């Protein structure tokens, strides 16, 4: 999705924003599938990043995530969308218990934007393949996270938070929020990927499983 000239892997700000928001859409789906927030049968397989990725077929969730990723990367009423303006600091997916609304997991995607690119409009070079490989590594890690993340036995719901610069006006599809933190979390840092314009770090923090107490 990065705009490129023939034979050169040039990445523009717009292209990078598209990569990041697309990544987020697939990562969100993957988390919902792997953590069992929605039933497995409501997902369908597609090929992406050289892996079989699962996308939800539930209309409500599908439109939610689509609207969300559109907000991150495309032009909205806001004027200048967040990723392209370098105003988006992080995106957090929060998984909470449906019954108690207690936060059980936080998937934190921090974004560092190269301010040079934003201000001066320069472009960078990085091979698409390289970026895809990095994203693939993260997706694999998300999928394998089920080996150490505590079981979510109860019905869960999710929310998506965005950390932005303070001067960003809150668009009408968002409302100001508290960070929805976990008390005494366990944290695992996953791989990151870098488009040379946006660097995305992934971190998952989760509620300590009682069983683990020594």
């Amino acid at each position, binding site marked *: 999705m990065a705009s490129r000239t023939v034979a050169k892997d040039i990445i523009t700000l717009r292209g990078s924003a598209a990569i990041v928001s697309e990544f987020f859409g697939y990562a969100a789906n993957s988390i919902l599938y792997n953590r069992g927030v929605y039933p497995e049968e409501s997902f369908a397989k597609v090929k992406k990043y050289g892996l079989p990725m699962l996308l939800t077929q539930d209309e409500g969730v599908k439109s939610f995530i689509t609207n969300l990723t559109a907000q991150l990367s495309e032009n909205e009423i806001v004027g200048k969308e967040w990723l392209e303006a370098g105003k988006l600091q992080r995106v957090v997916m929060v998984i909470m218990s449906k019954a108690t609304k207690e936060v059980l997991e936080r998937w934190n995607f921090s974004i560092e934007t190269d301010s040079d690119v934003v201000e001066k409009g320069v472009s960078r070079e990085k091979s698409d393949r390289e970026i895809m490989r990095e994203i693939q590594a993260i997706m694999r890690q998300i999928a394998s996270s089920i080996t150490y993340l505590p079981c979510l036995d109860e019905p869960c719901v999710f929310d998506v938070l965005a950390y932005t610069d303070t001067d960003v006006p809150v668009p009408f599809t968002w*409302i100001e*929020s508290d960070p929805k933190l976990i008390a005494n979390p366990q944290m695992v840092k996953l791989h990151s990927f870098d488009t040379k314009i946006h660097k995305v770090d992934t971190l998952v923090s989760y509620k300590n499983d009682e069983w683990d107490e020594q």
Partner: protein
Amino acid sequence: MKAQRGDSLNRIGTLQDDSTTVPPITDFRYHSSFSSSIKKQPASAFFFIPCVQAYRQKLIENLSLDSQGRPFKIMVFRGSPKSSRKSIRFVDELRQEVAAIFEKDCKQTPYRCIPKGEKRVLDAPRLRNDYYSNIMSWGMNNMLAVALGHELYLWNSEDQAVHKLLQVRGGNDWPTSVTWSEDARTLAVGYMCSNLQLWDVESSKLIRSLQGHSGRIASTAWNGHILTSGSRDKSIINHDVRAANSLASCIKRHADEVCGLKWSTEGNRLASGGNENLLYIWEASKMSSSKFLHRLSDHCAAVKALAWCPYQNNVLASGGGLSDGCIKIWNTEKGICINNIETKAQICGLEWNRHHKEILSGHGYSIRENQNKLCLWRYPSMTKVGELGNHKSRIINLCQSPDGITVISAGADETLRFWDVFGPPTAGAGNSMVSDLQGLLSFRTSLLR
């Protein structure tokens, strides 16, 4: 970790959920958002004072810094409603719902005793030792119809009067299936030679003979004016007993004798079990096209015992024969098995307890346990509550009384044993479905006492 520390210092922004505790007024760090927190704590009115306001503004600016020293604000996406879904994990939701109802129910019902002995034993000479037949039915009129050999008797549970309804002449034919209609005005009798008869019991007269099958009719079930019959000829026929040409639909899906047939309590679904170990679920509206809703092949033996759950829509219990011995609980909406119990014995009948969340299974042969016994299982946990049974040989059929207190087991030892295992009757406080049923029944108290 740095990021974490930064986060905890910056708990600002409007609080979306009331459950988040707000620290005391004197803690300036947290009371930075005027707009909505003001609404929640009237005591913070003193923040309106201008000099304090300026101070707070300064504070906000300095505190909302992340680990890199950049100020930020947090927002949550509310772009479009997520939940068009009903369930997250449907099975879990189902289980939770049932567990919640069960918990509620548990607190209300006192500890019950399972009777050790039978209330009554009736002699049933010449009762045929045939697994597939369903020769017993207890109607809403408190009459028990039971086929013994070539004869069919009616036993009045109110006055214990016995009345022979019919006798089949000729050695090659006998009743193989007996079912009362829902209003207990008509008795449907299926025969070995494939005949299906409707009897009016008031006048002890044969009303109609229905044709259609070419093999013995081992199972029948009523759904209002529809009489469904399952036969050794592998077909299921729906008869509309009001019409002159009664044959409404004929379904040929089973690969062997249809030995179990039960309509759901709402009458929208039919469960049919066959000797080829398959269980089919049918929608009432789609019967004429022979298109089944679900084809369930989990059992390893004939599926004769079928019973729909009285307190949960579309939940069905099925029991397998000798090589299977499993009670399976199904969600017929999705066609998935939500529970499975291995009883290790041939299951000939299943009856749900309408008063307490339990299910009773009647057993025949077994190489290990539960032989010739009745087992009571708590629902939905499916833990065994107890077992009863004094039958000397295998149990063939089960049926329960209209008031849902007594269960009769018909055994190959030529006895009918009455067990008051489902009582005491609940007042219907917790579960509305149970109390609705009780309301429907005109015989509220058991007259067998």
